[in-house]
């Protein structure tokens, strides 16, 4: 009995894998027949991503070649890690990586909590009308173009500008702050906060409205004041939102907004203002060091990606919140 059974099984097994392969192929064919028009419909979208997103990813291979436009990507000779080595031994390495990290962390440290705190405070405003008006007004800077924002900054921190004037009341000598190395990071971070604190609070506000009100009622009955309620109910309830936003932020850590920096910096303050992305832009598009700047850019992208993954993993281990 056992023998026949085992013979039966051993005979069935290879057929089983063949059968699953066959059924998988059948599923694919069946799905294609069923959804043919759907796949046709999404073809332009796939083409777009293929050409403009995955195309450049393939193009990044020129970081390992000595790319000459005349020879094209395939025709240019391989040089391996030459440009990476050049970058890591460059005297500017510590400067630009340091600035990237400084600006990123400063933005994170000072900029990340502001929308959250603003949302919490806004949530305490009783008058719906006042709250609404405040929201509408504080969302506005988000929609003003970066060019205009930077020109506002330039005007206000010029030697005859308001900010400089106000600072002079505190005894600080009037001078164009965009020429002062140590002033760049504060200017960058504070203007960023000004522009985004209103708009950034929307996500947290919507998370706050989703909190079950009966939790607050129960807490009041137990005698908890508003402050305790905030710590024990409000914050834990919006913690998932905060974590997700934080993880997403980590993934962009090395991608410091180069557009804004390009509009504000000058060679006088490269020491504190030059970051990886602006370096890539200058080396590549202004000095035509194609391969070198691609290598630096690739380094940037990879580090970003690793940061995102580790932030996600860390969050998974320490709490239950993660992106995937």
């Amino acid at each position, binding site marked *: 009995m056992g023998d026949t059974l085992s013979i039966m099984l051993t005979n069935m097994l290879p057929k089983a894998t063949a059968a699953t392969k066959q059924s998988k192929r059948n599923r694919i064919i069946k799905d294609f027949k069923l959804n043919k028009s759907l796949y046709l419909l999404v073809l332009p979208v796939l083409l777009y991503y293929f050409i403009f997103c995955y195309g450049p990813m393939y193009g990044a291979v020129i970081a390992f070649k000595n790319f000459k436009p005349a020879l094209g*990507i395939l025709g240019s000779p391989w040089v391996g890690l030459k440009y990476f080595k050049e970058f890591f031994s460059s005297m500017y390495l510590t400067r630009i990586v340091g600035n990237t990290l400084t600006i990123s962390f400063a933005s994170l440290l000072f900029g990340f909590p502001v929308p959250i705190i603003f949302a919490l405070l806004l949530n305490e405003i009783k008058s719906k009308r006042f709250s609404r008006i405040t929201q509408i007004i504080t969302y506005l800077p988000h*929609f003003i173009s970066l060019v205009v924002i930077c020109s*506002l900054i330039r005007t206000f921190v010029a030697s005859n500008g308001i900010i400089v004037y106000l600072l002079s009341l505190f005894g600080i000598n009037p001078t164009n702050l965009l020429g002062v190395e140590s002033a760049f990071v504060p200017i960058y971070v504070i203007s960023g906060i000004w522009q985004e604190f209103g708009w950034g609070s929307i996500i947290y506000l919507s998370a706050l409205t989703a909190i079950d009100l009966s939790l607050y009622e129960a807490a009041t009955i137990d005698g908890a004041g508003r402050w305790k309620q905030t710590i024990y109910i409000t914050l834990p309830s919006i913690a998932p939102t905060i974590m997700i936003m934080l993880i997403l932020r980590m993934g962009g850590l090395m991608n410091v907004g180069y557009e804004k920096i390009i509009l504000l910096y000058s060679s006088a303050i490269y020491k504190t203002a030059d970051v990886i992305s602006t370096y*890539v832009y200058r080396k590549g598009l202004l000095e035509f060091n194609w391969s070198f700047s691609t290598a630096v850019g690739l380094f940037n992208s990879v580090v970003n990606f690793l940061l995102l993954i580790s932030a996600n993993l860390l969050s998974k281990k320490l709490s239950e919140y993660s992106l995937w």
Partner: protein
Amino acid sequence: MIKMTLGRRTFVFFNTIFMLLMIVITLYPMLHVLFASVSSPSLLISYRGIMLKPLGFSTEAYKAVVQNPMIGIGYQNTLFVLFGGLIINITMTSLGAYFLSRQNVLWKNTIMGLIVFTMFFSGGLIPFYLTVKSLNLDNTLFALFVPTAINTYNLIIMRTSLQSIPLELEESAKIDGAGHMRILLQIVLPLSMPIIAVMVLYYGVGHWNAWFNAMIFLRNRELFPLQLILREILIFNNTNDMMVGTNTGAGDVEMISETIKYAVIIVSTLPILMLYPFLQRFFVKGVMIGALKG
């Protein structure tokens, strides 16, 4: 009912003051620009400090701005990019969102993964530039909206919104013999007008404010969009085009330069400022949809 203790009352008081302060901080820069743009140039140049009203009154700056041909060209190009761009954006995003929101599609999750991956990793600026160049799009206005046809974040928001359309509608249409294209055009899209409005606004603002891709791809000044013209004027202090025709002496040039800059800011931001109060409701909706489900 929250107990109105002294502590609570103090908090409410300071919170209100704080909100008013936030409003002032947000509005003041634009007010300053507005006042300065209609101020008399000679009074403005020597003034330091906070402006609570215009200094004198002069519309000279606006006259110069309106007469500047580059501003008109900038507006033209931006509008071309705006409309052309929106058509492509909405079409592509709708196709993608429709596909990703359907059920029983074998490759859907794989494709979704591949698309989302592009949000976290890219080839970099230089390969992107070379790609666009190799397609001969550089130095054309098409470089400003074809390579950025789909914003993945917007795609996800729209997909989330389409997922809430009841399955029965799609199924009954299928029974009636409708193909996917008809379902999309005659059922799904008409029901999704709110989210499409959000898409139009999100993509629209993006096109209006964009300048970087224009800077790296365009060499022909006649093709410059508004923000790039602004950059010349505001960041590079290049108001030469606007001096032609005005009766300004050497010293006056610097003064009127200042007021011209302020006027230019107002003229270029005016559309956004005027439409904003009416449209902000839609923007907020978009973020909510994306946040709650994305």
